[in-house]
């Protein structure tokens, strides 16, 4: 499937903010389930944008703004062709040993409740176990955008029984690691053909399964990641794989506007330039 992604983040500062430094994990890599045809990051202010590869092998950038600014717009756009590999992730560089993904982080610590959930899904067949875990999280935690925030940890979200894709992914990760399964967080985009133009920032989890390697599970939708998923960055948790982490000096209060759009389009013959969708529809 051919997906067009358009991602715009606008920072506005009360007063000009100086010394802005941001780590951007906004660029997908091609792998067996996706091939990136075109991708660009545009920053609205003068500065230095440098690419690097982080410890997980993600394509990252660091941005240093030159002077003080009162508004900063990051515009990411691109085109990806996806293939359904039933969630199996292959063709990615894997610089870290899998055991690293057994580490617990403050955001993915399994409390007694998550451990109980994990134990209830134990299965001698690791693939069956992973599916049971994903479905258990999918059933137990309802999607609700209003109860959690970006720094909510897995245990809290699970106690609330509600959360967004980030929370569901982190609960799944915490439970999987408890069962001794290396697990990691994936930030990316989701653009199903039946819902064009919907908000497309998404997150799910990858579990390392014997014989299969990394397999992507999307507990929010209760499915393995497929054609509608564009995989951008992985990490131990949502903070580690965060699309943007930044710092600044001064600037006072900040307002943030994010709009991410994904659109599935009919596969044009190769060579036709992608039509970039309009991104004016900010909320």
């Amino acid at each position, binding site marked *: 499937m051919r997906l067009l992604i358009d991602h715009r983040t606008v920072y506005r500062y009360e007063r000009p903010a100086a010394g802005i430094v941001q*780590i951007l994990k906004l660029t997908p890599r091609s792998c067996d389930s996706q091939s990136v045809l075109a991708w660009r990051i545009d920053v609205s202010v003068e500065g230095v944008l*440098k690419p*690097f590869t982080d*410890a997980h092998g993600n394509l990252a950038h*660091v941005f240093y703004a030159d002077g003080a600014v009162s508004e900063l717009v990051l515009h990411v756009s691109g085109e990806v062709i996806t293939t359904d590999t039933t969630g199996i992730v292959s063709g990615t560089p894997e610089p870290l*040993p899998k055991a*690293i993904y*057994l580490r617990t982080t403050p955001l993915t610590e399994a409390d007694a409740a998550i451990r109980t959930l994990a134990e209830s899904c134990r299965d001698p067949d690791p693939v069956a176990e992973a599916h049971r875990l994903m479905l258990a999280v999918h059933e137990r935690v309802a999607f609700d955008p209003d109860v959690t925030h970006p720094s909510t940890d897995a245990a809290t979200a699970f106690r609330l029984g509600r959360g967004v894709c980030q929370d569901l992914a982190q609960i799944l990760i915490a439970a999987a690691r408890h069962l001794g399964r290396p697990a990691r967080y994936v930030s990316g985009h989701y653009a199903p053909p039946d819902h064009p133009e919907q908000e497309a920032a998404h997150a799910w989890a990858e579990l390392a399964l014997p014989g299969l390697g990394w397999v992507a599970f999307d507990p929010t939708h209760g499915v393995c990641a497929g054609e509608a998923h564009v995989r951008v960055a992985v990490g*131990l948790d949502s903070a580690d794989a965060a699309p943007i982490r930044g710092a600044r*000096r001064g600037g006072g209060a900040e307002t943030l506007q994010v709009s991410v759009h994904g659109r599935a389009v009919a596969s044009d013959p190769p060579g036709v330039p992608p039509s970039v969708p309009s991104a004016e529809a900010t909320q």
Partner: protein
Amino acid sequence: MAGAFDEMLGSSPYADRLDPAAVRPVYQAVARWLASASPELLATRRRQAELFFRRIGITFAVYGDPDATERLIPFDIIPRVISAEEWALLEEGLTQRVEALNAFCADVYGPRECLRAGVVPEDLVLRNPQLCWHQLGFRPAGGVWTHVTGIDLVRTDPATWMVLEDNARTPSGVSYMLENREVMLRLAPELVSEELRDGGIRPVETYTDMLLATLKSVAPPGARGEPVVALLTPGLHNSAYYEHSFLADRMGIELVEGSDLFVHDDVLFMRTTAGPQRVDVLYRRVDDAFLDPLVFRPDSLLGVPGLLRAVHAGNLTVANAIGTGIADDKAIYSYMPGIIRFFTGREPILANVPTWRCREPEALAEVLDRMPELVVKQVDGSGGYGMLVGPQATAEELDRFRQRLKAEPHRFIAQPTLALSTCPTLVDSGIAPRHVDLRPFVLMGAHGITIVPGGLTRVALKEGSFVVNSSQGGGTKDTWVMGPGGT
């Protein structure tokens, strides 16, 4: 403890008059001095020493003690003496140990051969909170990770020194080593000059020059010209701030806080009145977790956003390197003999204290059984906190620790209570033996290892106590390493 080795008298008891025949050769001069000095004179010297420390402002903050935010560490004016032969052995053992610690870091963050060879269990390293996964695959300038290491040693008999703990992150205390010598030279010049006849006390004051040379030797590939070195402190309220300003001053480098620094285009700069100035080597006394809010703790105000980028781009050396906590982790400690054999190909010169790893079920069972005679330590605790000294614990404390051990065995190790050596110490009742340890400071630069002959001797001032931590009522002594040809 009965039977502990005394460094002045061996196993002879302390009497009102010291028997010169019982005094070990290396302590002869000190014993003569003690015999000739009246108790009043010693008491006066002690008061003068305290006055000196107050005036120069060596104080430290005690966490959790609101009434005494600025306290003085008691200084004992009777020096501890180490012979040239004893030091030669220590020097060799320390060099070997630090080489192994550094090689271990390089391997863990690089090819991980020691994990593949089974020297250390893989999960203990890869899942260790001290492992900084952002550093995996990174190689620092000169291959040096542990630029400054403080090794805590205890002595159990004339021939045996054991390593109690490695400190490979941001070890402190070196300013005491230097200031204690300064005070001794002022307060007991007659003793110092008598020692001179016997080969002399080896100087320690070259430490800061050696430190600066070490730091400059590991300037990153991106540095241009003479490397600029700065010392990063958490600030005025840190317990070791005095040491930070002391070292910066002696090295003639800037003492910077996070707010003085910024990273632009992968280069670290400090804000100066002459405009931004590039920094090539940062001797940091701030913990890993606070160094870069874009990678580590986002709420940290002590670090610099983008610092890790500058390091990875080859434009900045951070000393010690980020992630060396994996080498001095208490859970890793018990594997050190194997690590030393694996990386140096030789038997360890300095022994480890026998250690039970409570993560292993048989060890746990034994520890639970023998707890009243053991010291139990939390692997992620430090400074004497989170520690149980079995022989001195109440039944209630023992019980509490048993529960904690059963709940989270992987967080604990246990060691036998050691008969730490004693040194003559001036206490209210006169001169008495008190237990001591020793922290020498080992420097590692691009051209190898240097060790200043000396260290920080900490003394447990309470009779019978083994806890030498300054936060728990310990004091310090000047440590004299005698020159060759001396006694």
